[in-house]
């Protein structure tokens, strides 16, 4: 019985280790690729150890896409978007969760229903709109369209429902203004939910591809995904450079994830998991 248990334990472990290696190998491969020459990714036998080309690959990548500019674009767009969207969505969620007002259910239902409509159904009118406003190839063209993100509103509302209404009423009796109640009493106790929602919004914008690809048209405005896909679409591809780009775009998110695992997971799964 005991040895049988041990065999089970070992085989379970072996299966999971193989699975985990499959999960992690592409990351390792990208990082190795970033430190080697373009050809080494296709050498026989495969190059599985770091090389010395990292700096050169980064230099070449910088020449092709301008790393710092693309990094700035991606960070600026994702950060601005996250702050504004978090603010706008949380305010709306607060109204839905803690106020009774005519039209509340209708508006909330429309928000929920819109989650069923794929983004594709909006991009052509959005493109025409941005073209008419002369906003194509600007930051606001990428930031504005999804600021009122129904899923984020829904997420925050679910969390705000649990906030004790009596605390809000007590503050009102003490004469506190509605903004003060929102900022000083409600928001401070919502930090975990705010963090999870912020991560959700940030990742959404950081990884967003189709709309930035359509809305942005020059290298100096590209975000990382658009810049990388353009680089990868060239007829002569320098794979070392591409892998350096992929690695640079991925590492910050991985570090961020490892530090804030719990918030990441609840943000990405929509707090379906606590």
């Amino acid at each position: 019985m005991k040895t049988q248990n041990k065999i089970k334990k070992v085989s379970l472990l072996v299966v999971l280790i193989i699975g985990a290696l499959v999960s992690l190998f592409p990351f390792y491969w990208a990082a190795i690729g970033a430190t080697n020459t373009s050809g080494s990714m296709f050498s026989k036998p495969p190059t599985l150890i770091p090389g010395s080309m990292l700096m050169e690959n980064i230099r070449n990548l910088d020449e092709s896409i301008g790393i710092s500019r693309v990094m700035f674009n991606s960070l600026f767009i994702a950060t601005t978007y996250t702050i504004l969207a978090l603010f706008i969505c949380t305010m709306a969620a607060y109204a839905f969760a803690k106020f009774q007002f005519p039209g509340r259910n209708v508006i909330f239902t429309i928000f929920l229903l819109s989650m069923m409509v794929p983004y594709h159904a909006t991009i052509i009118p959005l493109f025409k709109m941005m073209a008419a406003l002369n906003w194509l190839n600007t930051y606001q063209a990428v930031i504005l369209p999804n600021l009122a993100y129904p899923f984020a509103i829904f997420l925050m509302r679910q969390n705000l429902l649990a906030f004790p209404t009596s605390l809000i009423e007590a503050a009102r009796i003490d004469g506190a203004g509605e903004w003060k109640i929102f900022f000083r009493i409600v928001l401070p106790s919502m930090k975990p939910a705010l963090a999870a929602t912020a991560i959700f919004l940030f990742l959404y914008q950081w990884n967003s591809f189709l709309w930035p690809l359509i809305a942005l048209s020059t290298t100096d405005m590209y975000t990382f995904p658009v810049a990388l896909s353009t680089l990868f679409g060239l007829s002569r591809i320098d794979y070392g450079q591409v892998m350096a780009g992929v690695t640079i775009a991925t590492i910050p998110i991985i570090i961020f994830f490892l530090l804030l695992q719990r918030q990441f997971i609840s943000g990405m799964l929509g707090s379906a998991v606590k």
Partner: protein
Amino acid sequence: MRSKTLVPYMFVAPAVILFSIFMAYPIIYSFILSFQSGQGSNMEFTGLDNFARLFSDDIFITALKNTFILLIIQVPIMIFLALIIANLLNSALLKFKGVFRVSFFLPAVTSLVAYSIIFSIMLMNDGVVNQFITAIGLDSIPWLSDPFWAKASLIIAMTWRWVGYNMVIFLAGLQNIPEELYEAASMDGASKIRQFFSITIPNLKPVILFTVILSTIGTLQLFDEPFVLTKGGPSDATLTIGMYLYQTGFRFFDFGYASTIAYVIVILIAIMTFIQFKVTGDQE
């Protein structure tokens, strides 16, 4: 008193205004566009012509077929794998659960473009995957240059990216299944595999439905992966509806027809979601 009734409107106003301009208006406008034809601003109303055109458009039909092949094969494989891994990770015997969970979840935080690029490079003819395959004595596989294997490449890549994500959802669901059910089954001599099919899966049904709907919606809109990994090829073998919409709208600037394609995606998502609710919800 009057000011107090205005308070909630003040809180929802920014979201409602932005939503109306950038979501509601485009959704309605593209619905109208889907009945129009023409170039640039010279659009004219052509009734259901665009919808009729879909049926005689071979490329659209190919894209539709491709999308459904990917959907029908990829989603079940991924959900099943995620269930198995979640179940293994949930085993009391296991140490280092946290490490495994993070390893499996990590692909889900990478950008779709980044992982598509990595897979594209790994799956090239003389890429690392084929080198492993030939090293164990098999023939190398034309991953990206053969219509069949190009679809397989997409399925493998998408499964890699999303298994961990679904696994974490299932892990949470597993915590809600009472331990006594398994204990009773063990006493009755039911094997682990038997328990998986007769206790775990039935109890997780609502969670499985949720993940299947999410994955279905995601696959029907698929764009990033085929755009980067296979570029829709070879010869349209991995062209999806989402990619065809992009090509029609932003390569040929046929906004009317592209809007029609967008509404095909809307309708398909509505139908698929409805079917899934019907199929799994009726017994209760």
